[in-house]
């Protein structure tokens, strides 16, 4: 288990540029599933046939991460960038970046000696990215408008925690891959025909998953996410969204959707029966692909299960490995033999 998480978070793939993530997943699940298809939005759909083909379950995790795009090449050879997905400009200051995964770049920062106002927020309008080019002509030979820019962060784990970029939502992708491995290694079948949808473009407005669902026509769906913790020292526990170490996060409502009650309760019951530590999401901010699924076809009912992560949408998010394990166990139990 957790064989793929490190690779998945180290790879780069902003919304609309998920191809590297997809190739990686494809090459690792190729001979383990009954069918692999891709749709026009780039979703990767992997089917494992179940014991009972009367119902279809869709598992969904998005491949894309938040990042940036080159939106300007300046005369001095530096670049202007704009965020793809929600990235607070304050976490961009002085970061290391990669352009198209190959060119190293840094975010320029005026020395403290020359700029005394250190509480001012440096906005995207003034952020300059430097890669060593001395003018526009030179820069334009290697870097182009629309090029993908990502945080240059390497996965690291110690004891029971891990730090990386893009846990939102490579952690969901990783759990789906682990479940595919489980069926393959144990020559087992899920209860229902199970479609693992590795979705595109969640971060830019839940744009990927709908077209995949339209193809699959699932009876119900379970969305896997890496979600916000918010258990920072400035917040008292009553303001936390979740707490890392307290197990999988079960969501009853989030932005744009109250989750299907039956599915929610089924998930809660299953977690209780397994005797694992779990928690409810205590804030309703932030959305998931479940909101899109509810508005797709006949309105697909869905549940949402997340791994709590600190500092998502930043280059350094932290996750508890026991939370990952418990989330995996819960999702696996739901897929293996929980009747809906």
């Amino acid at each position, binding site marked *: 288990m957790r064989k793929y998480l490190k690779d998945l978070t180290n790879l780069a793939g902003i919304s609309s540029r998920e191809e590297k993530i997809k190739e990686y997943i494809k090459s690792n699940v190729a001979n383990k599933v009954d069918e692999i298809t891709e749709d026009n939005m780039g979703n990767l759909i992997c089917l494992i046939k179940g014991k009972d083909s009367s119902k279809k379950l869709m598992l969904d995790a998005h491949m894309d991460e938040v990042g940036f795009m080159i939106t300007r090449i300046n005369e001095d050879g530096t670049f202007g960038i704009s965020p793809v997905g929600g990235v607070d400009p304050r976490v961009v200051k002085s970061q*290391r970046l990669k352009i198209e995964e190959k060119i190293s770049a840094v975010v320029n920062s005026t*020395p403290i000696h020359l700029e005394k106002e250190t509480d001012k927020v440096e906005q995207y309008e003034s952020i300059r990215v430097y890669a060593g080019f001395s003018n526009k002509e030179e820069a334009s030979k290697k870097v182009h408008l629309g090029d993908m820019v990502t945080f240059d*962060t390497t996965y690291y784990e110690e004891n029971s925690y891990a730090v990386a970029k893009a846990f939102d939502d490579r952690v969901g992708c990783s759990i789906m891959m682990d479940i595919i491995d489980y069926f393959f290694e144990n020559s087992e079948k899920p209860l229902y025909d199970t479609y693992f949808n590795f979705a595109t473009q969640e971060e830019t407005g839940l744009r990927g998953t709908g077209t995949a669902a339209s193809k699959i026509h699932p009876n119900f769906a379970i969305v896997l996410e890496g979600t916000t913790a918010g258990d920072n020292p400035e917040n008292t526990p009553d303001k936390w969204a979740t707490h890392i170490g307290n197990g999988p996060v079960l969501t009853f409502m989030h932005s744009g959707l109250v989750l299907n009650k039956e599915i929610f309760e089924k998930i809660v019951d299953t977690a209780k029966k397994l005797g694992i530590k779990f928690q409810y999401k205590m804030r309703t901010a932030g959305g998931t692909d479940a909101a899109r699924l509810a508005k797709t076809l006949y309105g697909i009912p869905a549940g949402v299960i997340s791994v709590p992560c*600190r*500092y998502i949408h*930043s280059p350094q998010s932290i996750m508890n490995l026991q939370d990952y394990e418990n989330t995996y166990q819960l999702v696996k139990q739901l897929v293996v033999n929980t009747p809906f």
Partner: protein
Amino acid sequence: MDTSTLLKNLSNTFGVSSFENYTFPLIEKELKNISPDIKLEKVGIGNLVATYGSESPKIAFFAHVDEIGIVISKIVDDHFARISPVGGVDPRTLVGKRVLFKTNDSEKTGVIGFLAPHLQKKEDREKSPSFDELFVDFSISGGTSSINVGDMGVIHVQAVELENGKISNKSLDNRVGAAVLIKSLEYLQNLKFEGQLMLSFNKGEEVGLVGAQGSAYHLKPDFAIVIDVTFGEKLPENVEPIKLGDGPVIGIGTTVTRSVFEELTKTAKNNNIKYQIETFTRGSGTEADVVQISSTGVKTGVVSVPILNMHSPNEVVDVKDVEESAKLLSLFALNTSLTWKGRRKS
């Protein structure tokens, strides 16, 4: 060792002010490689001084080896601790960074966390956090149980090569200076230098020019050059800009002795070394400010290497500028020694 590797190795070491003991061994080893007979000693508060040659004139090159950093000021709970700056640290440069803390026997990784946009309040978005609000999350390395107030840390990055011979890392201020000193010795070995060159690698510049004072007092050089980094970016409109890749920056003005400035520029011109000029109208912000007025006064010059993004984890230097600065210094030492002995015509 080639300059690029030397710069990377030096800037990768941990050396927050007062904690330079990981950087010194690397410098000592490199100096011994270049000149096996070089005399090494610790001076004053622990500055490393290397002496090459004997007799006079006594020429000293100064560079501080310490870097800015952060220090634990309060333990909040099992996971979190508060920090204060060591030297001039813009708190905004710390947000969303991985950090590394060192004690004498262990290393601890932490993360300076930042609330995800989903949970932020609108009114908090207009302001960047100050040191009162920043925190380090040590969950990743077993929590705060083995962390103590006073432990020192840095932003955990390693050197990276950018396009066109540029290197980016933390602590190029002033491992660049240390590299220039080392390289100048390497070049000087092939010249007919007849004097004594003392290389002083100093502690504690970033917290108030602490180390250089003692070295200058102890060494009593006839000539001193301070090597540091300077701003290679946009400066106020009334000041001439300095650019990466345009060569060493020679200081003029207060804290610089005019004859030393003249010797440096003459040396550069005679040897086709492209150089830039930086004006000091008050202090230079370098060790020259204390070296020049040490004891009965020292004839002092300043040679700086331009970098980008000073005091951030993304400082950038052009390797060529480092090599040209080292060349200029070695030729300065040679010419000064020849003039001293009356063997130079000009």
